[in-house]
């Protein structure tokens, strides 16, 4: 079997970078030369870079990748961005009409705007570019970064992000501080750009905050690569609401490793909206590390064209009396495909666990495909763990009924799709997020 490229120069690639193409030793050295970071961080990057070079690209022979084909991804077309692309920043969706406590904007993982309300800064809240804040508060942040919630050795993408992350976002809320206004992060990709952002959220004991993060591409046809990581640390009794809307263009490759740690009595509500990207491969993990911790994970996915979104979720119960509740809902059009693989892992110490996971798929075209693979791995003997999955089409009788009441076929389909997602919308307590997701999905629904 041979492999030839019949498109040659047809592949469009317009980089905002100065560095030579590809993630080579030369580009890594040039990237590191631009950094002014403490030696412990340089060592972490060098170690991850070595791992990146050692690891092969994942192949379809591996269980985790056998349903997600990335043979068309050519890392050599992308490179580390050392300059900010001059683009007009698109508007985000999540923060419309919301009074914010702070906001950041990044382009190709270079932070271009950063604001935090003075009253929050006065209480010790840190929010903004992780780059900048590591330089200013390295000693405070070092233990959290060195915890490596996202394992740099896991695969080639986690190693690349660990070695080369830049820009990024940090939210640090000190013990007992309650941040009432949401904070907002918008990450933008230029055409052909690369985003290697890292998000680190730390809520100390008893702290509370809401963070709305979203992504966007500069244009509907612009390509690019995102290889990111998210680490959420919710300490004892803290409460975090975290929303992450992935809205890249349909020409963007999206890889992400995401990890939330919830300490004793802590609460994490984590909502994911996945609308964009050509291909997404996301590992989303939640670990409940102290007793009575709770995690609610909500997922809303809408795919069209030839999009392929793969989400691997993992709910890890490490301590007793914890609850986790995961609900992912997907609607699929055209030739698109989703893969959801979920796992509830209960350690022997995690007695009295209450864990649930569910994935529902609404097939809007006979050519779409959804793979749903729930799993349980339970070592404790006094637990309640359940899971479920459904896949189905729009009910013709519902369509007919709606049309007899005066709706057009498209209006009826849109209404039924909205109703399908209502169960997960009802769990999202932030109105602007509900409205943004509902509106974005409504615009995408085509006539059946």
């Amino acid at each position, binding site marked *: *079997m*041979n*492999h*030839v*490229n*019949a*498109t040659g120069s*047809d*592949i469009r690639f317009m980089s905002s970078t100065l560095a030579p193409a590809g993630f080579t030793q030369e580009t890594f050295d040039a990237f590191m030369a631009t950094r002014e970071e403490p030696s412990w961080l340089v060592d972490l990057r060098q170690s991850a870079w070595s791992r990146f070079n050692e690891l092969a690209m994942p192949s*379809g022979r591996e269980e985790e990748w*056998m*349903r*997600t*084909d990335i*043979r*068309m991804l050519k890392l050599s077309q992308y490179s580390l961005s050392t300059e900010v692309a001059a683009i007009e920043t698109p508007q985000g969706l999540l923060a419309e009409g919301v009074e914010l406590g702070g906001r950041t904007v990044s382009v190709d993982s270079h932070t271009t705007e950063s604001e935090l309300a003075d009253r929050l800064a006065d209480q010790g809240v840190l929010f903004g570019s992780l780059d900048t804040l590591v330089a200013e508060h390295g000693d405070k942040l070092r233990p959290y970064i060195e915890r490596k919630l996202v394992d740099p050795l896991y695969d080639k993408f986690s190693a690349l992000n660990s070695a080369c992350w830049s820009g990024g976002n940090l939210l640090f809320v000190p013990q007992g501080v309650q941040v009432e206004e949401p904070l907002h992060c918008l990450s933008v990709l230029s055409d052909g750009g690369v985003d290697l952002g890292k998000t680190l959220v730390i809520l100390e004991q008893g702290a509370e905050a809401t963070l709305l993060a979203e992504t966007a591409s500069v244009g509907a046809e612009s390509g690019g690569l995102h290889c990111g990581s998210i680490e959420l640390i919710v300490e004892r009794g803290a409460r975090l609401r975290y929303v992450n809307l992935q809205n890249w263009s349909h020409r963007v490759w999206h890889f992400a490793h995401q990890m939330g740690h919830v300490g004793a009595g802590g609460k994490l509500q984590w909502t994911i909206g996945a609308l964009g990207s050509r291909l997404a491969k996301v590992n989303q993990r939640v670990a409940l590390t102290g007793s009575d911790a709770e995690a609610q994970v909500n997922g809303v996915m809408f795919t069209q064209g030839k999009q392929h979104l793969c989400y691997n979720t993992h709910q890890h119960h490490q301590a007793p009396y914890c609850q986790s509740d995961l609900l992912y809902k997907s609607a699929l059009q055209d030739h698109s495909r989703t893969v959801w693989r979920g796992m509830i892992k209960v350690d022997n110490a995690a007695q009295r666990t209450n864990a649930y996971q569910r994935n529902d798929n609404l097939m809007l075209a006979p050519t779409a495909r959804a*793979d749903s693979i729930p799993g349980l791995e339970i070592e404790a003997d006094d637990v309640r763990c359940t899971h479920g999955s459904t896949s189905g089409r729009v009910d013709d009788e519902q369509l007919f009924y709606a049309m007899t009441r005066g709706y057009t076929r498209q209006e009826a389909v849109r209404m039924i799709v909205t109703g399908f997602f209502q169960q997960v919308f009802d769990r999202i307590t932030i109105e602007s997020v509900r409205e943004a997701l509902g509106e974005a999905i409504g615009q995408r629904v085509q006539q059946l």
Partner: protein
Amino acid sequence: MAEFVAVADSSEVSDGSSLLVEVEEQLIVLIHAAGHFYALDDVCTHDGGPLSEGPIDAAAGTIACPRHGAKFDVKTGSAVTMPATSATIVHEVKVENGRVYVRLNR
């Protein structure tokens, strides 16, 4: 409508073999069987396996997925044996002056 794209010299693909080619950001398996060329999406409709890594039965006009053995008709893309039940997409092929061209059937 998509254009024909040159993907290979006909001599590169001996009868009874296949070649994985890239056409407009899609992976296509180019098959040479019983003197004719065919092009299919390089995807088994059962679980996404790469057909380009599977054996060809030129006489029967089929290519098999290397994972679970599902066979597809190289002319029509239809699934011939379980566990695949739906067709993979077939694309138009022409040979001119020793060059093989593929036009995507979107």
